[in-house]
């Protein structure tokens, strides 16, 4: 900047001429540097506070929540009992199927298949219970709930290999295993 100034004085033109050429030469300057400073600080701050993992919730179906009204007529209700040894599926009274652990891991695939089969049998039923033994990890509760809540089925009429999500038992209550 000083260079241009000195040059304009060096040309020996009148003061008016000097300022005129100056106005032509020098475009109006934005004060960009402070703006960049602020932006940098903002970006760093926002990046640091940004949360990249979303927390969602699973709502439990509590029997006492909307008490009142006549008790619903007895109908099918899926119960999944999570034991140390594996899953047990019952309809409240009778055992439907037992899914033992495979290689020390819970067999979620079979559970999903059985749940789908039961959902096809009773399409109107949304209610289910997950009953857990005391020492089973809480993580498995969520996984079992996920498994019976929805499943992926092959989409009909679509390209082979594509799947759609089928909602199964969405009202899930939680309890302790008998």
């Amino acid at each position: 900047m000083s260079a241009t100034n000195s040059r304009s004085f060096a040309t020996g033109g009148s003061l008016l001429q000097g300022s005129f050429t100056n106005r032509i030469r020098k475009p109006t300057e934005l004060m960009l540097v402070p703006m960049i400073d602020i932006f940098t600080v903002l970006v760093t701050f926002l990046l640091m506070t940004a949360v990249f993992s979303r927390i969602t919730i699973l709502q439990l179906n509590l029997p006492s929540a909307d008490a009142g009204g006549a008790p619903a007529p007895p109908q099918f209700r899926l119960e999944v009992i999570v034991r140390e040894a594996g899953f047990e599926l019952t309809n409240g009274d009778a055992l439907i199927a037992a899914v033992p652990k495979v290689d020390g891991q819970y067999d979620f695939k079979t559970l999903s298949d059985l749940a789908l089969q039961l959902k096809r049998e009773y399409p109107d039923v949304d209610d289910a219970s997950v009953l857990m033994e005391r020492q089973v990890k809480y993580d498995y509760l969520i996984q079992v709930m996920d498994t019976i809540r929805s499943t992926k089925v092959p989409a009909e009429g679509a390209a082979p290999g594509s799947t759609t999500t089928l909602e199964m038992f969405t009202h899930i209550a939680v309890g302790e295993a008998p």
Partner: protein
Amino acid sequence: MSLLNRAAPRVDAELNLIPMIDVMSVLVTFLLIYTADVEVLQNTKGIEIPNSTAQTQANQSVVVTITKDHVFVQGEMVASLADVTAADTPLIEPLKKVLERPMLFGDADAAGVAKREVTVIADKSLPFDLVRKVMATCTATTYGKISLAVLQK
């Protein structure tokens, strides 16, 4: 000197700042929008919450947090897990006391009970028994809805 000048006419060294500002504006806007939808639940350090396919967004509620060592209500330490497992009661008494505080929920009428909500953030390695105790305590006091906080897959 003059020779040198003539050979290479002097060009003002200039940073090209405009594209940089463009990029930064986009970044700032993106981050601002991304953080704008308020997270009701803060992910707490030291808790590994389970993954799930759940899509429901969390809403404003009383938050009960269970870490590997302690139980918190709205960030306030209530009991340690050692005490909870040692005390052989069906409910967690200190938690019950805190949950019964009237200032935790706004309205005190009976109709609000069913709507009162509590969100449980629990570490995934905890035994179910403990989580069940916390949930039982919540329902035994005046909370009609329980949600479990999970990490979206």
